[in-house]
């Protein structure tokens, strides 16, 4: 025992180094869990304050783009409200609200931190649990999908962008509904890859790619991007499709966070039937 202590003391430099590396590993592994330590990420008090200050300054530079986008969205919305439609006499047509249930709710937020050049990219938003955000919510802009919420603190939330090595979003081709997971290969923030598309699908350059409802996180039909090119690798019976993302990740500022009102119900049902079939 004494010898061990002497040995440890003699090599204390090396052992303290090992200890620190172990602490790092523990942190890393903990943080990989879906709701790991939220102390050491950018939704904590100090770093989010600094990022917020930075974003406030940066926002002025992006005002012009943002205004244009808002104007576009406004015209789109104005076209959809009742002003643009002639009223149908009530005698022949009664609109009954019980026909529709609201499945998705939208909340608007602002991105205060965003990276695009790492292998696993994250966003920080200025809304959190106080505004009703929980994990696994979808994030979109008016241009396309952006990411999925990961950690939430009271006033901020941290989200995995779709430019993340572990994020898979189920997407489909708009024209015939053939679906597959969208995976980012880490080389260019403008493109992502749609994999597992069977070779009988007729793909053309420029085809629209939208989200499918399989994941339960994104509503069906949100724009993802356009087909840039596709190839069939040797020995595989699937196409790998390169998709040009429609959202410009360099300029993300205002986003909508989508809450699926029926997600808990759907998840518990799916889990229940999986457990039953496993038995």
């Amino acid at each position: 025992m004494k010898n061990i202590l002497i040995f440890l003391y003699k090599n204390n430099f090396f052992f303290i180094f090992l200890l620190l590396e172990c602490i790092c590993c523990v942190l890393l592994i903990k943080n990989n869990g879906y709701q790991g330590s939220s102390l050491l990420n950018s939704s904590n008090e100090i770093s989010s304050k600094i990022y917020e200050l930075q974003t406030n300054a940066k926002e002025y530079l992006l005002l012009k783009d943002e205004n244009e986008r808002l104007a576009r969205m406004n015209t789109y919305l104005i076209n959809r409200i009742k002003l643009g439609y002639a009223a149908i006499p009530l005698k022949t047509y009664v609109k009954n609200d019980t026909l529709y249930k609201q499945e998705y709710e939208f909340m608007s937020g602002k991105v205060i931190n965003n990276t695009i050049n790492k292998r696993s990219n994250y966003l920080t938003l200025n809304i959190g649990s106080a505004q009703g955000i929980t994990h696994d919510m979808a994030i979109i802009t008016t241009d396309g999908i952006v990411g999925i919420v990961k950690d939430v603190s009271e006033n901020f939330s941290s989200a995995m962008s779709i430019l993340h090595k572990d994020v898979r979003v189920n997407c489909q081709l708009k024209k015939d509904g053939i679906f597959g997971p969208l995976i980012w290969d880490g080389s260019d923030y403008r493109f992502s890859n749609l994999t597992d598309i069977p070779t009988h699908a007729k793909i053309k350059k420029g085809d629209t790619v939208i989200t499918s409802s399989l994941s339960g996180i994104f509503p069906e039909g949100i724009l993802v991007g356009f087909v840039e090119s596709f190839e069939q690798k040797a020995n595989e019976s699937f196409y790998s499709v390169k998709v040009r993302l429609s959202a410009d990740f360099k300029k993300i500022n205002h986003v909508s966070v989508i809450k699926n009102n029926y997600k808990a119900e759907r998840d518990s049902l799916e889990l229940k039937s999986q457990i039953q079939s496993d038995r």
Partner: protein
Amino acid sequence: MIVNLIKIIIRFIILILLQVLIVQNIRLGSYIILFPYILFILLLPFETPKLLVLIIAFITGLTIDMFYDTAGMHAAACSLIGYLRYYILKLLSPREGYDQGMIPNVDSMGPIWFITYSALIIFVHNLFFFYLEIFRFNEFFKTLLRVILSSFGTFCFVYIVQFLFYKTDRNK
């Protein structure tokens, strides 16, 4: 002594803010990622106890992790270079040893010494960091290219930035 300590703390704050507010937004494609904050560990005085260097490096890494959402990754890479710095300095030491109160920069040690010293440490940091980030081997050569290009980029950046600190030293 206290003046030096304050200088080191100011350097720490400047480099962290430089990294987080400015360099993080410099995008040179996904293969070149700059980490000039390593300069803080490079520029610690020669006579800093080795254990202290290790702990300072670890804390620096943790601070960067807080901003980068990468709990543990920068801290792991920084404690590795904090550990290896002692041996690298030993390896590169001139025949008469290092003078007291000197800082390892171009001004006091000459450009060739500084290039060897910083390039070695930056390369080790990047090598460890990028493989830890990807944590799998099926993108081995892509990651290696990333390590080499990023090391070179960071090295050029560090070489320029250290002149900022060295000029204030000379005015004294």
